[in-house]
Structure formats: structure tokens, C-alpha cells
């Protein structure tokens, strides 16, 4: 079946005319239609069919790019011109973007086919995708469980093979954690690798886009199309992009893998730990050397993150005021009423909670104690990694302390925040991180996290690909 093919295989299929882009697109649209995962906020059927027809004509003329005609699902945080872009929020339920995000432009320029916009935690704030406005996304491995978040719709859609790949964003683990919980591959590149222009901001200094795919090879192919400097994003790096597919087959002999002892302490589910240790053993068998490292400040990542991210979001989300676009309350009495009710009614609880935390932490008299202190912790976390990368090439560990949990099972926010413990520090340090399927615990997928030094995506993809050459976990599918 076409939906079990990787992108690498679909590219060949399109080239050899085994199937057309329209056939491929229609196949996925049918699968989306039959899906009960609630992975999509918008299905852009007509748009997709038109793009597929255009792609087929370009393929026929022979002037196609590598990805021409490949379908994908776009996280609903990326602006798409003329198409609803909601960020998973009632606030933007009526918002039709007047412009394309740089990433949307890039994928369009390859004549790829957008199937729809995926569900997500509101404004990317969350780890479970139990979205109060568009409804919860279900994990294809067990529909009573969460897919993870915030790119949960994207991860569930890829895992259920209702799209060959999906875009995601990762501010504190939002690509890696759902990839882990859904048993697929996801990479968050180095901060600055992919343009943030047109990606609705949650926490600007942490947000980074990346692909969710079925394999490391696919991730490399897609990252080639996504990465690169953008003059519209001052924080994007003016740095050349290597061909990420080039070094996938390099041997791992002599690779130094660091295991942070802090990642294997209390709180880590035994089943998850077993899967991770087995994967480490596999790497050892491939010729890698395993070295224990220490990231002593990693446990401070949660408090630091939950200051920095809310501070930035409290400001980033101020533009949603009911004045120019988006949700506006009915019959505002005066300006204050317009602001208060539009924002109270338009935002969900978690978003409001983070805005309030951030506004509080930035207010006069608290700034030094919270924001500045969190920035200092952030510096310490970066230095921990810097030290570790003097000794090792890659750091490995769990992505999430547990496999997918049941929908509605985590009720208080702090417990939910703890689910991000292994992923947050990577964003705080601006490093690339990846999750690859490494096995199962109680029939639920478990992801292995790979963390690299700045700009080491090529190495991470190589390390991930070699594992996938030696294991079959990435072929495990919740569907036929």
C-alpha cells in the first residue's frame, strides 16, 4: 500500500510513474476522511487536489524538484495564505492568513501537496493535545491515550499513515515528545536553522520548526527543503545548509555516546528505561563507545523554562486583542471590556495561565528574581552541554519519562509540565534534538532521544539512520 511507503520510496514511485501525485493525494485524503483521530483542524481537499494536478503536470514535463507531488500535513501554527490558520485556538478560529510563512513558501516552491492543517495544543502550549476548542487528538496506538504535544496532530497523522510526513514545532519538546509517544521519527534542529517567519510565536527564543516522519532518511530529505537562512527572520542563521542525506550511511565505529546520569534517575518509568538501555546496547554493538556524562543543572530546566516561555508568550500573545483580526467579544462596552472579554473568551485556560505567569514574572520588582534568574540558569544549562560535548559526540536518553498516558489522566498543570523534563533543556540551550522509535513498553511506543551539539543535524540523522538500518522499530505501525 502507498501509505506504508517512506518519502524516499514515494519519490521513486512518482518518478517511475508507479502512481501519480493525484493518486497518492487522493489515497491520503481518503485515509484522513476515514480517520477518527481528530488529527486535523482543516482538511484542504480541493487545494490538495489542485496542487497534486499541478505537480503531476510538472512531473510530466520533467522539471520537477525532488519533493514535487509529495503530500504532507502542515501544523496549524504555520501561516498559509488564504487558508485558515488557527494555532489551535478559538482566538484565531476565523483567521485566514493573508500571507505564507517562509516554511509554507519553501514547501510550495517544491510543489508539494498540502493535505490540511493539523491539530495542536492551543498556541503550542501543552504536552497532550487535549485541546479544549478543537477536541483531543487520539493516539493511533491506543485511542484512549494522548498522542503527546504540542505537535500531537502531526505525530498522530504520520503514525497512522494518513500523511507521509508533517511539519511540527518544538519549544520545549513539542516535536520529540509526540514523536516518541506515537512511535515515529522527529527532529528539532538547532535554533536558527529553519525560519520562524510566519510561524505563530509561542516563545520566540525557544521555538523551532522541524519535520515528523517515518524514518531518519525521510527526515533528512525534508530537512533539506526546510532549512536555510531567511532575511525576514533576524534569528535565523546565515549559515550554509549541508545535504543532510549525504552522510547517512557513515559508520558509527568510534562514535562517543554520552549518557547523562541525571536522565536515568527517579521518575523514569522502568519500561521506558529498559527500552532505552536496549537501544544503547545496540549502538555499542555498532561500534559506539558509551560514556557517562553529567548535566548537573538539567533538573532546573523545568523552572527556568516555565519562566522564560511564559514571559515571552505573555508578550507574543498581546497582539490577539480583538482589534484587527481574530476573535472579538460581542457588544463591547468600552475598550477595556473589548480587551478583557475578547481575550478571556478567546483563549483557553492553559494559555491564560501562562500569560498570567509571564506577566507576573516580568512585572516591576519581580523581573530580576524571575526572568533574569531564569536566564542565568539557562546559561548554566548551556555550559553543562558545552562541557559534555567536549567528551562525547552525541548525548542519548529518554524523550519522555513515560509512554503515552490516558486521555484526561493528568489533571494538574505541574504534573503535565514534568512530562517535559528530558526535552526542555535542549531548547533552552538551542541544541538540535531528535526522537526515534526504540521499542515498546506495555505495547506503547517509546522513543530514544538523540541530542547533538549546535549545527550537528547531519550527525544526528546519520546516527538515527544507522540505528534504523539495524532495527525495525520504525517499521512498526499501528495500522495495516
Amino acid at each position, binding site marked *: 500500500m502507498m501509505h506504508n511507503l517512506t518519502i524516499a520510496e514515494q519519490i521513486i514511485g512518482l518518478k517511475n510513474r508507479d502512481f501519480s501525485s493525484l493518486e497518492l493525494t487522493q489515497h491520503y485524503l481518503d485515509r484522513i476522511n476515514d480517520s477518527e483521530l481528530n488529527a486535523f483542524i482543516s482538511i484542504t481537499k480541493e487545494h490538495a487536489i489542485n496542487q497534486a494536478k499541478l505537480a503531476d503536470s510538472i512531473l510530466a514535463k520533467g522539471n520537477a524538484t525532488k519533493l514535487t507531488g509529495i503530500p504532507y500535513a502542515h501544523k496549524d501554527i504555520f501561516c498559509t495564505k488564504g487558508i485558515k490558520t488557527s494555532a489551535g485556538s478559538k482566538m484565531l478560529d476565523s483567521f485566514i492568513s493573508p500571507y505564507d510563512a517562509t516554511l509554507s513558501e519553501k514547501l510550495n516552491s517544491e510543489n508539494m501537496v498540502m493535505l490540511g492543517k493539523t491539530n495542536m495544543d492551543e498556541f503550542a502550549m501543552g504536552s497532550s493535545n487535549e485541546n479544549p476548542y478543537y477536541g483531543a487528538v487520539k493516539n493511533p496506538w491506543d485511542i484512549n491515550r494522548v498522542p503527546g504535544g504540542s505537535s500531537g496532530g502531526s505525530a498522530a497523522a504520520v503514525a497512522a499513515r494518513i500523511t507521509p510526513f508533517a511539519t511540527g514545532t518544538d519549544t520545549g519538546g513539542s516535536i520529540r515528545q509526540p514523536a516518541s509517544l506515537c512511535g515515529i521519527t522527529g527532529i528539532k534542529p538547532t535554533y536558527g536553522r529553519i525560519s520562524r517567519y510566519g510561524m505563530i510565536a509561542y516563545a520566540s527564543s525557544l521555538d523551532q520548526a522541524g519535520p515528523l516522519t517515518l524514518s531518519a532518511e525521510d527526515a533528512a530529505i525534508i530537512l533539506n527543503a526546510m532549512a536555510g537562512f531567511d532575511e525576514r527572520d533576524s534569528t535565523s542563521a546565515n549559515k550554509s545548509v549541508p545535504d543532510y542525506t549525504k552522510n547517512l550511511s557513515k559508520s558509527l565505529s568510534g562514535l562517543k555516546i554520552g549518557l547523562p546520569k541525571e536522565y536515568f534517575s527517579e521518575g523514569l518509568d522502568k519500561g521506558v528505561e529498559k527500552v532505552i538501555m536496549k537501544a544503547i546496547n545496540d549502538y555499542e554493538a555498532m561500534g559506539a563507545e558509551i560514556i557517562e556524562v553529567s548535566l548537573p543543572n538539567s533538573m532546573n530546566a523545568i523552572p527556568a523554562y516555565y519562566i522564560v516561555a511564559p514571559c515571552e508568550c505573555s508578550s507574543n500573545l498581546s497582539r490577539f486583542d480583538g482589534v484587527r483580526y481574530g476573535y472579538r467579544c460581542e457588544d463591547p462596552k468600552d475598550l477595556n471590556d473589548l480587551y478583557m472579554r475578547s481575550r478571556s473568551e478567546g483563549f483557553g485556560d492553559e494559555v491564560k495561565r501562562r500569560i498570567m505567569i509571564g506577566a507576573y514574572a*516580568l512585572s516591576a520588582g519581580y523581573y530580576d528574581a524571575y526572568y533574569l534568574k531564569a536566564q542565568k540558569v539557562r546559561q548554566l544549562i548551556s555550559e553543562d552541554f558545552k562541557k559534555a560535548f567536549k567528551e562525547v559526540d552525541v548525548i542519548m536518553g529518554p524523550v519522555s519519562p513515560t509512554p503515552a498516558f490516558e486521555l484526561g489522566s493528568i489533571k494538574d498543570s505541574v504534573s503535565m509540565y514534568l512530562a517535559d523534563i528530558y526535552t526542555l533543556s535542549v531548547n533552552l540551550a538551542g541544541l538540535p534534538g531528535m526522537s526515534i522509535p526504540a521499542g515498546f513498553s506495555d505495547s506503547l511506543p517509546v522513543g530514544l532521544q538523540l541530542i547533538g551539539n549546535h549545527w550537528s543535524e547531519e550527525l544526528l540523522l546519520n546516527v538515527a539512520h544507522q540505528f534504523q538500518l539495524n532495527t525495525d522499530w520504525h517499521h512498526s505501525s499501528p495500522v495495516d
Partner: protein
Amino acid sequence: MTWETVIGLEIHSQLKTKSKIFSGASTAFGASANSQACAVDLGYPGVLPVLNKEAVNMALSFGLAVNAKINKHSIFARKNYFYPDLPKGYQISQFELPIVGQGEIEIPLDDGQNKMVGITRAHLEEDAGKSIHDLYDDFTAIDLNRAGTPLLEIVSEPDMRSAKEAVAYAKKIHALVQYIGICDGNMQEGSFRCDANVSIRKKGDELGTRAELKNINSFKFLEKAINLEVERQIDILEDSGSIVQETRLYDSDKNETRSMRSKEEANDYRYFPDPDLLPVLIDDELLVQIKNSLPELPTEKKIRFIDDFGLSEYDAENLTVQKDIADYFESMIAKGADVKLSANWVMGDLAASLNKNQIEIQDSPISAIELYELITKISDNTISGKIAKDVFKSMWEGKGSVEEIIENQGLKQMTDIDALEGIIDEVVNNNTLQVQQFKDGNSKLLGFFVGQVMKATNGKANPKQVNKILNDKLS
């Protein structure tokens, strides 16, 4: 009791960049509402700011012109508050590390002395849009064309001691930003706006509590608003009251200030570094490049005018206040015009006519060359200074060139000495009483005789000659 007034100014100077400070939209004034605001200016979801290098260079020009410390590492911060004409809910500004640090500028005082006024800092920021409250009955209209226009906020030390000093400082900054070509200085269009921090104290005391005056859009209003505020504060303190720290709005129609918000009602702006923008790093090479491209500054020009042209300090100061005035004056001198005559005419009749008609010197109906031609007619005795004033008036009204006007109106000075002597004899003979009084010692009467002669010659006699002949005949 004598009170000392303490004033500091915050000047918002709109930079003359082609595009906005963080977007590619045009900054031109007067376009139809909301036609010059792109997705970035409108604060659409997902958009990001990109710093305009031209704005940075302009800020550096200013910093170098006031001998300021340039911060080679400066950062942008977000100033958070909600207002409908502030699309993002925050203004991108500079808070902790402004691009321009401590500097200074010399201002002229009434007594002819000069005074140094400290500049605390100057920082880059984006302007907000405009709220228009009087367009609709039930709504406020928002025009976001101005949103994102680059501003340089220039903050002075509390060094001014009177409204006059504050105006002198504001004029000096106003002239400087135009000199170095970073601001058009148009106060009517809001390109140059002053806020004044005013407090009073007894001499030698600590600084008093200040009030910030806003909405001042001319130098005249600046002086009025400060004087009003000083009076208000004196009244309160002399009535055993105390000053409340607050922002007060100046109403030029009613010539009053009224409270806008007190310190307690002031926003907590929750400043923090803008994560969308990298720190601004300035290297020495750029500074040298900008320094070399700076034009001659007012103070340098003034010294040169004194040294090269022999002008008085007062004349040199007035002629260099505006670059366009200095340029006008210099093009006259370059043609060979008499320095003192040129200075007097530029600062006298020309300035008065421009002022009366509210015309800038660059738009003057009489060009520097034309004024030079007029002055040469005085120098070579073709016409008298008095007649020249009439010729000037006709030139202003567009009645022709200097030559044509003199010719057509028969204004040429009398050069026929015999004829002049005849007229003078007649005047002397017709006024025997005054002649006697003059001879008895009332020397003031000479003016009377000169006047009579000028009247009889329709002003065309050369006053010097008249004087000489009269003195001969009456002695």
C-alpha cells in the same frame, strides 16, 4: 521666595528613512489611512521584525554629532502595554542598553553666554499608529500608517533652568537633526515632538517632584506650557501643597495643562529584551565611516563664520541655526556680497518676510542670488538702503528682477550733485526758522533737514551725500 526651575526634555525625532524601522513599508507622510502598513506593521500572527540599518546609521550620526558615548553593543526591548494603535501590544524600543549614551550640546543663552546641556541617552524605537477620536461619533478610528516609523528618542539631563533655556535646547537639537539629515524637523506633522519634565525647587535643594508635559507641537507652546506648569507648581507649593508625579497634557487651544495619569495609574511596561532581534553590534569601521560622512556641524560652522567672515558671535549664531539659512548666506558671500550687509538682510527683511508668510528659507521667493544682486545695488550706490527695502518688497511680490524693478519704478539714486545741491538750497531757504535753531546748537535738526531732502527726492538721494552737503551749507 525664589524658586529654581528644573527642566529635562525628551525629544522624539522621526528618522528620515525610506522604509520603516522593522519592515519594508514606506514611511511617507499623508498617504490614505492604513495604506502603508504591511503585515509586520499590523502585528499579524507569525510576523517578525528586521532592523533597518539606515535607522541605526542615523542614530550613530546623532551620537557622533553630540560627542556621545556610542554603545557598541545595544539591545532592543519590548515595552508592553495595550492600546488600539499599538498593533503588537508592545512597542519595540531600547531600554537598558541604548545605542547612544551620554553626550552634550552647547546652547546660546539670552545674555550672550553659552551653556552645555547634558544628553543622557538617545535610543531607537518604533512609533505607534494614530488614534483618531473625532472622526466618528461612536468609534475611534485607527490609522496604522505611522506604526513602525523609526524614532530617535533623545533624553536630556535636567539641566535647563527656564522655559527659554528649554526652547533654546530644543531648537538646537531641532537644527542639529536637520543638519545631519536624519529628521525633517516638521513639528506640525509630528516629525519632531517634545515632552518636558518640569519641577521646581529652592536653590541648592534636591530635585523636586516632576510633572511630564506632553502634546507640545511648537517651540512657542513649549515655552508656554513650561511657564504654565512652573506657575502651577509654585502656587501649589506656596500654598503648602505637594506636587504629584504625573503626566499632564498641554492644551494649546485653552493654554492649560491637565492631568492625564498619575504615577500610580502609570503602566508597568514589563520591559524585557526582544527575543526576535539580535543585539546591535557596532564596529569601529562603521563609526569612522559615519564620522567622515557627517556634514559640518552648527558649532563648527559658527566658528568658521566668525573666523572667516569676521561676523559677530551673535550674527554667526543666528546664521547657523538652520543649515538652509547658513547655506543661503554662504551662497551670497560666495558671489562676493558684502558680509555685514548680507547678514543684516538675511536676518532682517528676509527672515521677517519668511516668518510672516510662514515660508522656509529654501522655499523663499527671493533666491540667494537675487538677494545678492539687490545688495550689490546698495554697495555700488545705485540705490539707497531705504529704497532697497521697497525693491525687496517688489521682488518678494514677484514684480521682476532687481534691475527691472529699479528701472521700471525709476528708483535709481540721484547722482547729479548740482541738482541735489539745488534741492538742498531750496529746503534750507524754505526753513529759515529751523536753520537758525540748528545754528544755535540744536544739532538734532539735521535729521529733519535730511528727511525733507529725501522727501523732495522721493528717497532717491544718497543719504551720505545729503548729510555731507547739508553739513557744509549749514555750518
